[in-house]
């Protein structure tokens, strides 16, 4: 995600500036890596769950966890309340495990298949010693497995554990057993149950007591196979007084079929701990007619368990055919703080139903929600949020701001904020507004010599400024460019 976009892609000359002159920029990450993949047969059954577990040599507790989840999932029905529509998913027509054929564990990066390294190079995530990013440790996940993690040794010196989920199961089973499912229980929702049954890999982060993680941590998810579901699992634990900033990026090739991505992310912050989780999501969104693209059905939740703990979600959602995602905070510890900063951009036929839940349990807990939705083309962009103040959340405060920007008269912007309060000594404030890029504003900028497309891009990034400010620096610049690219030609 930290790739630098070639500047000519952003400043490509635009011949016309009229409405509907939609010349969408081609998706830059749509290539397929030609590599031998080991896949299991399509379909989901108890055997498949056992097979996945066996392939990964998992301890009994994890197999039990998967089986409980699978049985739960069988009893559940797919949610239908979100403002999204798609043909029924055939869960028996999906491959639940795919891995590039290579030896299970690599002693060093030099042994990783060069094709894979090349793939990540192309995605702007160089992994080799010479080229890798100097200030970010990266865990690269290709289809169902993690293929490499950089800077592991350096992090270990600080006591920080950063590795693939599978590795963590082998080396730190006690931590996994303790925290897995503690924030998102297996029965939480349909997709979380599915993930709990079949998850393949993902990242594990553990920051011990009092440690400030010396560098940003990042996981890069790449779907390569066309018929594979991706079900990764991320678990981040920050002990007392620890802090970490974590970045997540994702891309997928262009297929004209839809791929299911049902991830679960769990964050646990103990007393005074702080976790900042940033996502720039750029899954393949399907073509301009809505064919293909990723179904991104993700459950992300953080538990502010200890007093004064702090969890902050920042997301820039630009990809996926359908996004169904509500990164949430359970504010259990007194004086804990939850934040949600989101930019969701939909174009063409994309559908997004995204927002957050802030569940105030403890006293004087505070939360902030800033959501910016941009809808273009024929897309549909919904903010759905819940702010809940429980009876014990005395002195709790929430402020939410949800703004929508509409580009063109065929895009939909919906806002569904739910507020539930049972605590008089608290305050909730929600504001929402809708705007568009007005001709007057564009004219003003153009009359000062700013090119049309640049003026649009300035206004969009101005609209998103509050959220971009929350992103780590190099992510912010990338996000800005990404939006400009996605919107190219959609305004006039």
């Amino acid at each position, binding site marked *: 995600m930290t790739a630098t976009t070639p500047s000519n892609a952003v400043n490509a000359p635009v011949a016309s500036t009229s409405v509907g002159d939609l010349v969408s920029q081609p998706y830059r990450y749509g290539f397929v890596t030609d590599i031998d993949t080991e896949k299991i047969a399509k379909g989901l059954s108890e055997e498949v769950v056992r097979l996945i577990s066996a392939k990964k040599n998992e301890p009994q507790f994890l197999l039990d966890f998967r089986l409980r989840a699978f049985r739960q999932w069988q009893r559940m029905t797919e949610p239908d309340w979100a403002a999204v529509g798609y043909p029924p998913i055939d869960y028996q027509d999906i491959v639940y495990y795919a891995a590039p054929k290579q030896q299970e564990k690599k002693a060093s990066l030099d042994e990783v298949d060069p094709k894979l390294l090349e793939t990540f190079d192309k995605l702007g995530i160089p992994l080799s010693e010479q080229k890798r990013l100097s200030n970010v440790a990266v865990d690269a996940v290709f289809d169902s497995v993690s293929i490499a993690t950089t800077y592991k040794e350096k992090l270990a010196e600080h006591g920080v554990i950063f590795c693939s989920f599978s590795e963590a199961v082998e080396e730190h089973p006690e931590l996994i057993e303790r925290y897995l499912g503690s924030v998102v229980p297996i029965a939480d929702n349909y997709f979380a149950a599915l993930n709990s049954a079949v998850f393949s890999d993902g990242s594990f982060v553990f920051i011990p007591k009092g440690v400030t993680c010396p560098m940003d941590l990042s996981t890069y998810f790449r779907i390569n196979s066309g018929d594979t579901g991706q079900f990764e699992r991320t678990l981040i634990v920050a002990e007392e007084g620890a802090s970490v900033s974590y970045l997540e990026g994702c891309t997928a090739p262009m297929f004209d079929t839809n791929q299911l991505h049902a991830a679960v992310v769990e964050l646990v912050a103990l007393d005074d701990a702080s976790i900042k989780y940033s996502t720039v999501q750029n899954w393949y969104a399907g073509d301009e007619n809505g064919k293909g693209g990723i179904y991104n059905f993700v459950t992300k939740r953080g538990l502010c368990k200890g007093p004064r703990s702090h969890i902050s979600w920042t997301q820039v959602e630009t990809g996926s055919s359908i996004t169904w995602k509500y990164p949430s905070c359970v504010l259990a510890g007194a004086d804990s703080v939850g934040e949600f900063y989101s930019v969701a951009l939909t174009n063409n036929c994309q559908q997004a139903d995204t927002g957050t839940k802030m569940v105030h349990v403890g006293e004087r807990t505070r939360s902030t929600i800033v959501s910016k939705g941009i809808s273009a083309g024929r897309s549909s962009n919904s903010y759905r949020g819940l702010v809940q103040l429980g009876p014990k959340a005395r002195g709790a405060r929430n402020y939410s701001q949800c703004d929508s920007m509409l580009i063109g008269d065929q895009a939909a912007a919906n806002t569904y904020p739910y507020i539930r309060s049972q605590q008089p000594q608290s305050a909730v404030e929600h504001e929402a507004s809708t705007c*568009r890029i007005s001709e007057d504003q564009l004219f003003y900028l153009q009359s000062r010599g700013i090119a049309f497309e640049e003026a649009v891009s300035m206004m969009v990034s101005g609209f998103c400024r509050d959220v971009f400010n929350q992103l780590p620096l190099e992510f912010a610049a990338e996000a800005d460019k990404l939006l400009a690219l996605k919107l190219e030609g959609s305004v006039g």
Partner: protein
Amino acid sequence: MTAALLQRGSWLEGLLAAHPTAPENSRRQLQEQGLPQARQEDWRFTDLGPLLALDPAALQPRPGLESPLALFPDGDVVRLHLDDRGIGLQPTVGSAPLPEGLSLEPAQSLLTENALLPARLNGLMSGPCLQLSLAPAARVRLELWLAPAGADALLAPRLLLNLAEGAQLDLAVRLSCRGSSLALPWVEAHLAAGAGLNEAWLLQGDASDVLLGGCSVQQAQGSRYCRSSVVQGWALARQEPQVLQSQGAAHTQLRDLAITTAQAVHDLHSRVRFEGPEGTLDQLQKALVDESGHSIFNGSVQVPQLAQRTDAAQLSRHLLLSERAKVDTKPELEIVADDVRCTHGATVSSLADEELFYLRSRGIDRATGAELLRRGFCAEILRELPPLLAQEVA
């Protein structure tokens, strides 16, 4: 079948059995649809328990009381109250003569397939009914006093209003129940171009009464619809105003206040839809929630593609004053048009400390200050009511 489902089914059967003469299509629709379940998004937060606690066999029309005072202070006012049978309306002493176009004969409302529950229930009953067709540019002021004299009352007023171009109707209604009663007020209104309808409702009930009411209003271009309601008391009071600006370019103003105390559940589900450009909406919902009250608000605003240049503002403000009280509020904005101004806001809080301090720093003690602030909170809506009606709010 779950116990809840069984209970709903047998309650409905009991109601239908008590009204054997109800129109067949109403019976059928109600039977098919049944009473709503908590699973349904629109009924998620609303507990129907108080309705099920009423004995459907005991609910009967009860004779009405005559209005002791005029709600509009002066001028020619048509004043009607519930008659001795409890299913009709009759002129009150001092009423202006009944205007042309007014009929008090039983009338059927036009139930659509997806009619709301209050409309369906109202459709079962036989009155009191009021049909008013106002000629172009006609002006009428009308006040209704709907107060059954006893408990166990069934009150299903049905108002069918048809306002021709430029006609103007000012309507003030005081509806009150006296225990174990069910009130089902339903209004259907058509506003032609330039017509104006001002409605003021004061809805007061006893702690065992249930109100399920609403309206379906269609507005043509240049019409103005202003509705103000104040709800006080009741075990359950749910209102579902629905407004359709069929060509846009009309103005809708909604002002609702709930004074939600004791065990009351007050619910406002409003829906405003713009089917043409340049419509405006100004909505303010307020609830003062104290003791074990539960206030629910769901305000849907729909702005489809053809509703360009819509200007819609919605604000939900809750004053939450007790540890046992509860608020569920959900503004709902759905927009498919780019050149619009739509805003909504929601706040839930207790009395503002800064405001209270300001009053105290002027020598006003905490209790008096809090009372001033409570009254101030309500005043914004009360002043939309005719002053004499507002005075009835204790």
